[in-house]
Structures are given as structure tokens and as C-alpha cells.
């Protein structure tokens, strides 16, 4: 069994204009997806929107910039952790995730420490 990260990128503004009743429906679809895949999806974390720092060493000085901002085309918003046998199995789970309606999913296998 391998551990995969489903890296979620989307546009935060895409969800900003939907009505309260429709928000309900969106959340419930994610909840159902988590329940349907409870054996495989073992975790998930959201990264805060609209803040962040990017550091780069430039010779002797440190270049620090704010970002990425929500104006960016697609930003890294969070990730799910999935236990699966193979990339194919992980992909089957990711392919049913409601997130694909709002952005992209990148699948990466975590290299075991040993």
C-alpha cells in the first residue's frame, strides 16, 4: 500500500458567488465522497487563502515576497491523503472527487522513508 497526496488547485473566487442553498449541496457532495472513500482517504488539510510568503536566497540577501494571491489563475488550496495500491487506484478515487468541478488535482506518491 502506498500513500498519495491529491494536491488541490483551484480559483478561490469560483465558489464566492454561489447561493447559500447551493453551498449546502457542494459541501454535501464532498462529505459523501469522503464517506464513500473512507477506507482510502485518510486525511486532508486546507491551506489559508490570500496570505503566504515566498522566500528566495539572492546572493547574500533574502528575497521575500507576499503571495500567492487569490488573483492568481490557480492556487494551491490544500490536499487529501489517499492510501492506495497504485497510481491507477489513486487516480480512480481522485477522478470521482467533486473538486474537479472547481479546479485541478495533481496526484503524487509519497516516497517511503525506508
Amino acid at each position, binding site marked *: 500500500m502506498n500513500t498519495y497526496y491529491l494536491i488541490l488547485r483551484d480559483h478561490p473566487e469560483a465558489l464566492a458567488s454561489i447561493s447559500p442553498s447551493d453551498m*449546502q449541496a457542494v*459541501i454535501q457532495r464532498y*462529505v459523501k465522497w469522503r464517506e464513500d472513500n473512507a477506507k482510502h482517504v485518510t486525511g486532508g488539510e486546507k491551506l489559508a487563502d490570500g496570505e503566504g510568503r515566498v522566500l528566495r536566497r539572492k546572493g547574500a540577501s533574502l528575497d521575500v515576497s507576499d503571495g500567492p494571491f487569490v488573483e492568481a489563475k490557480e492556487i494551491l488550496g490544500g490536499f487529501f491523503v489517499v492510501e492506495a495500491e497504485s497510481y491507477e487506484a489513486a487516480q480512480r478515487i481522485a477522478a470521482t472527487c467533486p473538486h474537479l468541478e472547481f479546479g485541478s488535482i495533481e496526484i503524487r506518491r509519497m516516497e517511503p522513508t525506508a
Partner: protein
Amino acid sequence: MTADLDDIFRREAGRLVPFLLRRLGPRHFDLAEDSVQDAFVEAIRRWPVSGVPDDPRAWLLRAAHRKALDRLKRDSTAERKAHLLAAEPAVMEIEPARDLPDEVAVLLLACRPSLPRESQVALALRTLGGLSTPEVARALLISEAAAAQRIVRAKRAIEREGATRVSDADLEPRIDASLDVLYLIFNEGHHATDGADLVRSHLVGDAIHLAELMASASATSRPRVHALLSLMHLGASRLAARTDSLGDLVLLDEQDRSRWDPAHLARGFRHLDLAARGPEVSRFHLEAGIAAIHAGAHVEGRTDWTRVLELYDEIMARWPTPVAALNRAVAVLHVHGAEAAETALRPAQSDPSLARYALLHAVAAEFARKRGDVPRAEALLDRALGCPGSDPQRRFLQRRRDALVSVRITM
């Protein structure tokens, strides 16, 4: 977890916007709405990935409060505004009204006398019902542009008015307006029981909830609030048993009364008792009395139409409307027969506001049929079919008309 989430954003919008509005002051309508929307967007970005919090309502309240502070801080003139997000509700100081729920305070605010009733209703649906502007349009069967215009007009009027101290003299008319608004919202939902539109089907529960809040607060608890609650609960008890809104009046006798909801019936009778404490007799008292007779017939097996007619006579004497005249004519049918009923219906038939009201023509057709005048009944049902109405309503009318034709063949 999923059950807790049931309709949470719409419900919480109806709670959180009044909460913020009451602490920011009525000049900050847009700020309150935008802050709640910010909190919702954060929830919808976070909950899918990191999970739904144990207490979603508390989470949303904290988030909305924080978002409002963020917006105040970003605003260049924020410093002098920041104190406005006060811990204590401060908008509607109705003494001695410390227990006034935020939703009731905002309902009274929306019901300022100078606003047209249609704007009061639209704003209440938007702010207290948690509906988006397109949903308000669907709930009221009006265009989105018209809904937006009514909401904006109401908001701007309230912002102009600013923080309000409602005097005792001003409170009574605002309570009356609030009850009218809630009854209109209830009726919009009551007419939408074919289940075609979820937005409309929430309206019955929302109107009852807001009226319960008014009844629970000492500043707004009045016998007429209980009378409206009685009327709404008794009406809601029959929702499941009804074929559709048009079959309702004509076919009350034919309904399966064992399907009436016992919980709503019990609350309806309890509020009728509470409404009777005091000398006040409102239109809602009389209408609740009529609804109670129909509900009571469920137990007794017969309807006291003579008493129903007396109550309609009183309504017509004090609050005459064409629809009340139509309802009264049905009672006349049961007490005095079809010819008297046709006479009683005539004023409603000559009222231009009901010319396109299918129910009026269907009732008139029923009177003609009872008299044995099948051709006239057919003509009237054709008129009813030519009026705007829902599909179930049209099917009901068509069945009545088909039944008439078979009567004619067998004669």
C-alpha cells in the same frame, strides 16, 4: 453530521445577517451581508478538505464576526467604525426589550411604515430567509430585476433611516406590518406544495419560525401574533393531505382528514387559546377561528358551516377583500345553497383583480354544477383553465371538466 448540515447556510444566513446588522447598525447592511458571505466562502473552501467542524453553527458565527472586523479594519475610515461591532445589540432599542431576538429586530426594521409592503416582503426573504436575489424572485414569482429593485429600495431606505429607536406608538403598526409580511410569505409557500420548487417549500416553515420568535419575545408578543401562528399551524397541518392549492377550497369535504399533521394541529389549537387571552380581535383571530372549525371537523366528522359563515360575515364587515368574499361564498353554499352562493360570489366576480384567478372561476363552476347548470359550469371551468396556474392545478381542473362531460352524457 450530514443531518446537522441540513440547509445550514440558508438558515444561518437568516440568523447571522441579523446578528451582525444589529451590532454594526442598519447603515452597514452591505457590510453585514458581505461578511456573512466571506464566512460562507471560507467554510466552503475549508470544510470539504479539512472536514466539517463539530459545531458548524458556532464556527460560522465566529467566522462571520471575524470577517466583519477584517472588513472594518481594511476600510480607511474603519477606526471610528470599529466600535460599532459591539458585543451588545444596539440597533433597535425597544424598552423593555432585552430579549428581542436579532431576527425580530430586523423584521421590525424592514417593516418601516413608509416602505411598500412588497419591498418589506422581499427584504425579509433576503435577510431573514437567507435567499439570494434570484431565489427571492422565484419565491415571489417575479423577475430578478424586480426582486433586486425591491430589495435595494428597502435597504437604502433603512440605511437612510439609520439607527432607530422605535417608540411605543411606532411599534404597534410595525408589528401589524410584520404579521402581514409573514402571512404573505406563508401563503407563497402554501401555494407551492407540489414540490416543484424547494425554495418556495421552505417559506411555510420560515414564516412560522419568525412568528414563533415574535411570540416568544415580550416586546412583540401579542394575542394577534398567536392568532396568526394558530392560523399558520392549522393551515400547515393540511399541507400533506391537499391535492393542490386549487383543490383545497372546493374539495375540503373530500380530504382524507386522518392525514392532517397532528403536531401542527396541536400547536394550532394551543396558539388559538393563547390568542384568546385579551380583548383584541384581529383578522387573524377570525381566520384562525375558521381554520379551527375545519380542523375540529376532523374530530367531530362535520363542519359547522353556520359558524364559519358568521366569521366570514365579520371579516367582510371589518376587512373586506375580494378573496374573503370568495371564501364567504363557499360557506354560503353550505348554509343556504347554490343560488344564494352564486349571488354572494357576484361582487368577487366583478372585481377586476380576480379576473385571472383560476380558483374564482372553479368555485363559480362548482356552484353552477350544484344547480344542475352543466353548460355554465363547463364554460366557467374553461375560463379557469385559461388562467395562469401550476400543472397539478390544470390537471385538477381538467378532471373536474371531464367529470362534467360524463354527467352530461348520462343525462
